């Protein structure tokens, strides 16, 4: 699960070595930044949270448990939690689509597959537009699943939720996207 380079790096981090810290920033910086900027509304906020994430990693490196997750997943978990905490703390006014009437839930699986499955550039643009109407947590979830290709178990570890809940959330988010697309089309 953890490579030799990672093991050495983690050892260096535990000793507080600046070289190991530099190495870690270079190795995971881009990944952490993308994860943070995906969740937060502005780049400035993302920069602030990015620094907080790495400081937290450096200070809490002794808490990392190798048998629970990979190092990258552990860092992702910290980045996710820091971003969510920041969002809750700032309480910024953001408007997202909420399926309060349960209309999205009533959509059939065939409809969802037809919208999200068959390759179509026009639909891709619509999905991109629809993604902007999803809450940050849900957007982050489907990005981790479809783009980073993380397993449901790892996503569950990052989001600190049971794997079944993550599965249900994925299904719900797909239907929600479909509903937003239908609304955008109409």
């Amino acid at each position, binding site marked *: 699960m953890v490579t030799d380079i990672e093991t050495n790096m983690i050892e260096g981090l535990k000793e507080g070595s600046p070289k190991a810290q530099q190495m870690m920033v270079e190795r995971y*910086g881009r990944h952490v930044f993308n994860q943070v*900027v995906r969740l937060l509304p502005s780049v400035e906020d*993302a*920069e602030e949270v990015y620094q907080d994430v790495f*400081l937290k990693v450096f200070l809490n490196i002794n808490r990392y448990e190798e048998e629970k997750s990979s190092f990258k997943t552990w860092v992702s978990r910290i980045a996710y939690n820091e971003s969510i905490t920041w969002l809750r703390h700032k309480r910024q006014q953001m408007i997202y689509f909420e399926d309060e009437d349960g209309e999205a839930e009533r959509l059939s699986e065939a409809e969802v597959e037809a919208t*999200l499955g068959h390759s179509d550039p026009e639909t891709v643009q619509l999905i991109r537009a629809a993604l902007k109407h999803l809450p940050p947590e849900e957007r982050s979830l489907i990005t981790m699943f479809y*783009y980073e290709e993380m397993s449901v178990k790892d996503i569950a570890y990052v989001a600190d939720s049971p794997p079944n809940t993550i599965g249900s959330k994925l299904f719900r988010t797909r239907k929600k996207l479909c509903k937003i697309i239908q609304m955008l089309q109409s």
Partner: protein
Amino acid sequence: MKEDYIETLRQQDTNLRDAIKLEEEALPPMPADLNARLMQRMEEERAKVIAKRRRSRLLWPLVAAACVVAMIAVFLTPPKGTDKDGATAREPVAMKVEKPKPEKKAVQQEAAQIVPTPSEEKVAEQPKVKRPVVKPTQPLLAQEKPVDKDIATEEAATEPIAENTAAEPPHTEMATVTLTERDIPITRPENYKYTPEELALMKQQANEAFLKWVELELEISKYTLEKMAQK
């Protein structure tokens, strides 16, 4: 089963995957100096931690010394109430010397009995006077009959009695005098402080009054109960 289905979705939702890929590519680039800023901040944090450690290293010996001094002070200082220089032993003596007022006590006792006296000292030292039995000078109807001899002896006997009564000191005839304001101790500034004996007496009197009140209450309740029973 569910996990397999989720895995198939990942491959199946091509539109969604493409859209997310495009979105990720469109994310703002990471600032070039961000890592440099992060490392600078890390240096500052490290310096802060070192300074904190140094401060704690300097502080701990001082704290330990202060604790030791406090412990020594606690152990060496005698507890309150012990005789350090004999000061506490002297205090009660001083108290005793300050307030011996026996005269007032006598006055108070009198006030409680509501038996007025001409003067405080006289009341305190008043001796018990035996009054001689004065026999009637005129014989009773039953005694009128006896002989004249008896009458003569009687007359002789009455004379020394009269003499005795005249020799009695004048203070034995107690005049009724009402208490003046100056005799009430509380109105006099010098009497504001009570002696322990006075306080004890007042306490006793208060207790007695309370007991009497309780007895009275009991009597009243007893009476009402009886009345109710009669009804």
